[in-house]
């Protein structure tokens, strides 16, 4: 890769863990030639030129707005039953057919977006923050705290997520969407802790941290003011991709009967009900399945684009 002087501030290569490259990032060095963008603005600029990433973002926003607008859209109540209309295939009145209680599938799928998508985003946001914090503390404190946290994380990671989630849901007394989400959070935090710990360890070795320590800054101040702001991209990319994983895992738990309980219009539970009815009623499971797949694909498109945008070495590939 070659750089013109004007581009150095923008396209500077970063080391793997995002540690600042000392030679190129001396504070106060003003690079002439071009207005410097913030790393975030830079990423946004790159993202805009990635059509697939934009499609992914579009799908995600599409589902989110469908979910938000569900109450005002001209669709049936998702729990309105009309037994004279049960298990009808797609038609003009019901474009996605009806289920075994005569409820309109299109309405249930749209209302399902209110459950699955925000639940996935929320659970990853919380898990990510907690996992990162725990990992950062482990990496910065070191010693016995680090060992205790990371060995626990190892134990959880060395285990198939869904079986652990099943055990947790069962231990909490059985099915329920909140139990399933809690299980997903417990299963996923260690990955963030591990990722963050690695970054913190790399950054802690920098001179400016030593400098802060030597002028007597407190541990909390160093961690929150000097180390955490320097950590970056991988966590955000991972979180984006993980929202899809969380949606699929939650739907999977619902599918085996350990997640959302009827009559909640949750996608995984709807697929289960459709599967139980039989293959001849294909539309029943088809619509919620396509919904999950499109959301996850959207998140994958967007996450891949984000990774490329945030990692200068991959730009333009």
């Amino acid at each position, binding site marked *: 890769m070659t750089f013109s002087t004007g581009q150095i501030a923008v396209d500077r290569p970063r080391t793997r863990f995002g540690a600042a490259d000392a030679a190129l990032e001396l504070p106060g060095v003003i690079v002439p030639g071009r207005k410097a963008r913030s790393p975030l603005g830079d990423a946004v600029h790159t993202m805009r030129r990635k059509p697939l990433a934009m499609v992914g973002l579009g799908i995600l926003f599409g589902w989110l707005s469908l979910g938000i607008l569900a109450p005002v859209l001209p669709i049936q109540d998702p729990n309105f039953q009309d037994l004279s209309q049960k298990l009808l295939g797609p038609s003009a009145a019901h474009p996605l057919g009806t289920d075994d209680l005569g409820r309109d599938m299109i309405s249930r799928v749209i209302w399902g977006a209110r459950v699955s998508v925000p639940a996935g985003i929320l659970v990853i946001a919380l898990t990510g923050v907690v996992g990162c914090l725990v990992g950062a503390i482990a990496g910065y404190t070191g010693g016995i705290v680090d060992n205790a946290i990371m*060995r*626990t994380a*190892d*134990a959880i990671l*060395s*285990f*198939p*997520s*869904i*079986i*652990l989630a*099943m*055990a947790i*849901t*069962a*231990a909490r*007394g*059985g*099915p329920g969407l909140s139990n399933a989400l809690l299980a997903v959070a417990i299963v996923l935090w260690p990955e963030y802790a591990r990722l963050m710990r690695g970054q913190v360890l790399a950054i802690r070795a920098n001179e400016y941290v030593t400098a802060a320590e030597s002028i007597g800054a407190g541990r909390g101040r160093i961690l929150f003011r000097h180390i955490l702001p320097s950590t970056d991209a991988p966590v955000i990319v991972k979180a984006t991709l993980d929202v*899809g994983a969380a949606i*699929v895992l939650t*739907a*999977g738990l619902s*599918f*085996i*009967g*350990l997640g959302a309980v009827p009559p909640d219009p949750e996608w*995984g539970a709807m*697929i289960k009900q*459709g*599967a139980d009815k039989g*293959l*001849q009623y*294909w539309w029943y*499971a*088809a619509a919620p*399945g396509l919904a*999950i*797949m499109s959301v*996850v*694909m959207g998140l*994958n498109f967007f996450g891949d684009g984000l990774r490329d945008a945030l990692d200068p070495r991959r730009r333009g*590939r």
Partner: protein
Amino acid sequence: MGLWAFIARRIVLAMFVLVVVSIATFLLAHAVPGDPITAIMSERQANNEEVRAALEKRWGLDQPLPVQYLYYVNNLRQGDWGESISRRTPVAQELRDRVPATLELAGFAMMFAIVVGVPLGIVSALNHDRWPDHVARFVTLIGTSIPVFWLGLVLLYVFFYRLEWLPGPGRLDVGMKAPPTITGIVTFDALLHRDWEVLFAALKRLVLPAIVLGSFAMGIIARMLRSSLLASLGDDYVRTARAKGLGERSVVTGHALRNALIPTVTVLGLTTAGLLAGAVLTETIFSWPGLGSFAVSAAIKLDYPALLGVTLIVAVIYVLINLLVDIMYGLLDPRIRSS
């Protein structure tokens, strides 16, 4: 660090994880609401102080928690994994019957993942940004985005219900008897007994569940191989190989692919372990009598001894696979040993 020291370290780490998991399952069993004595006795008997004290003494329930844990581990070691509440059978027996079914399914799934994933990854990398690459990437994206349980339903609908090309859920045709158990893996047992009819039927029934279970691993393998092959194709030693006049074929297979396979092998190992998780959903859809469907029915019926048994056996398998992967990785790439 030498190779043996590296392996020894990995084994100690694996043992440690198993101890942590056994403590966790033990504590989970303890956290379960309910009193074990009232569960098996009538209320009147359980309220009788003497009876209660006698039973607590007999099962060691009067001992402190760490001592109870040691009892638990000792029982596990002797093959006493408790009794399933919903089935009234010893958990250890159930697990013995079901582990081979899951291993069979996972084995065929991995075969599918490698046979399809590796060529896809290579084609993708060699045709970077041309249409074969786009097609391959789309296929792998579908593989990693589609929920397993939904893919299972779609394939069943198309190939079983509509086209009638392949049989539906189940491990053997109705009325067909499995060959006498040697390994518990039906295809293998049929092969050993030269029972071609059963072998053929069993293989046919493996096609769909193996594709469903293997699709995610296929996507991961293809993506990993694509990106690592792309990276190594741009490396200096590949340029050197080209410069000294080697043919394209020998440059790719002899130089680039060899190095690109190292990260793929790690991913391969990790996804093998991940197949155990996917088996939970796949087995549910295809009524496969393996560990996964056993775990599901145990979790739904709140059959804790069965669920804890599955958790433990899965942990053992998982840790063993990871151990093998680590050792293999250490053999392939000496740099890993020192980290």
